[in-house]
């Protein structure tokens, strides 16, 4: 049985035993999706590379901390990736660096540069997320874009939209419920097929 035939949980178990081939297989399976998430949020291929490397290095070190209570391996992995990307996004905002690399991203919007929130909105407008977010009410969609792709905390969203914190949290809750209906809840099938 090759590592490609192992399911995600089996790979994680092997990674816990410091099996590098297992990490390599997991990396091959999910690195592009992790990298893509970081790219869309950071708009910086160098930073996205570093985030991707950090995420899998983190998995290498913390594989033993995964347990089924955290959900599927993919959910755990993408939670790590998303939080790591958010941390990087917030750090960049804090130090106000503008990293220019002249990278010509395919499908990169020509406007909205420098503001990840605006970029996220443009991504939606270009239909990449439309199918997923199109069924949300506008105010729910806005909260999802600001939080998930823009890296704002719920307090920052509350300030930005001039809405009470409770309202922001309610919109998040309703957005997730709606997204679950839209994206489906066939968790087992998706997990077995590695998304």
């Amino acid at each position, binding site marked *: 049985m090759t590592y490609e035939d192992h399911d995600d949980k089996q790979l994680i178990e092997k990674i816990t035993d410091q099996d*590098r081939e297992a*990490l*390599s297989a997991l990396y091959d399976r999910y*690195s*592009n*999706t*992790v*990298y*893509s*998430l970081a*790219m*869309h949020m950071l708009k910086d*291929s*160098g930073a996205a*590379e570093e985030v*991707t*490397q950090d995420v*899998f*290095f983190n998995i290498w070190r*913390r594989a033993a*901390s995964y347990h089924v*209570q*955290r*959900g*599927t391996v993919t*959910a*755990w992995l*993408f*939670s790590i990736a*998303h*939080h790591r990307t*958010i*941390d990087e996004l917030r*750090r960049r905002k*804090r130090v106000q660096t503008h990293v220019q*690399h*002249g*990278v010509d*991203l395919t*499908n990169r919007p020509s406007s909205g540069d420098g503001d990840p929130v605006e970029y996220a909105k443009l991504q939606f407008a270009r239909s*990449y*997320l439309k*199918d*997923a977010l199109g069924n949300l009410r506008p105010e729910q969609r806005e909260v999802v874009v600001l*939080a*998930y792709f823009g890296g*704002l*905390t*719920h307090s920052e*969203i509350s300030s930005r939209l001039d809405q009470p914190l409770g309202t922001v*949290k309610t919109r*998040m809750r309703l957005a*997730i419920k709606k*997204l*679950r209906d839209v*994206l489906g*809840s066939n*968790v087992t099938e*998706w997990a077995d097929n590695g*998304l």
Partner: protein
Amino acid sequence: MDCRQAEERLEAYLFGAVAPEGRAIESHLDECESCARRFQDEGETLTRLASSLSEFEAPERVKRNLFAQIESEKRPLFVLSFIKEFTNFLAFAAKGHALNAGKSAVALAVVAVVFSAVWYNTRQNELATGDSEINNERTPASNENLFTSSPVATVSVRNQASRPRFGNIVSAEARLAEMTQVQRYFMYRMIQMSKTQVTSVKELQGTGPSSRPHGVMFYNTSNEALLLALDLPPLPSYSVYQIWLIKDGVRYSAGTFTVDSTGYGRAVIIPVAPLAEFEAIGITIEPSEGSQLPTGTSVLQGDL
């Protein structure tokens, strides 16, 4: 955190809309099955959202750098194991008592020499890997590399306590020389301290998600302390470990430090008040510029 608090924060946590200190919900999820079940369900939804983005291909070098970083983590296990056991013995023998000056001189000198030898060898290996990466990157940009034509733009020197992000090639020799000088100073101070009559050794325990980190703090009546930490996770360049001395419930910053890729770090602490007045020491993860008060995850703690 109870279930009510966790429920209030769950969606915000899933969306990444909480500040790092708000991720305490993770501990609750580890303990509460019903909250964990709800988290699982909603987490899957967001996983699918992430995967719905148009896909970019991660460059080959990311995988190469990842495994180079893992490789450089390999340590001379038997030596480190010895150091850990010896340090634990030292802390155990000194718990609550002052060490005899003569014994402490020998003990601290041995620890200093062994630590330095292991550290030096590990750094040499890492810098050799870093140098190799730098040399490999000095090629004309390929089609895969969409950066500017400058060959230095893609340098990624990982595994360093303070790594440059883009560019700034620093010679490996200069870096090693600088780090060796710092390490020698540290050794010198340790042996100097051992000459005094009273040297206290306090043990620090891991308090974060992993119980692996641990450390020791040596101090004497000169009010200078030396801190050694082991098995702390290396941090990204925008974070540091910050030391706090605690007195009457108030936290006083006592400096920051970083660790190398083996998780080893050390610091000299010169507190603002006599150490005998402090009750405890703690170490947290903070932004690289430091914090006025602890804001990040606590990783080590010990009584004084």
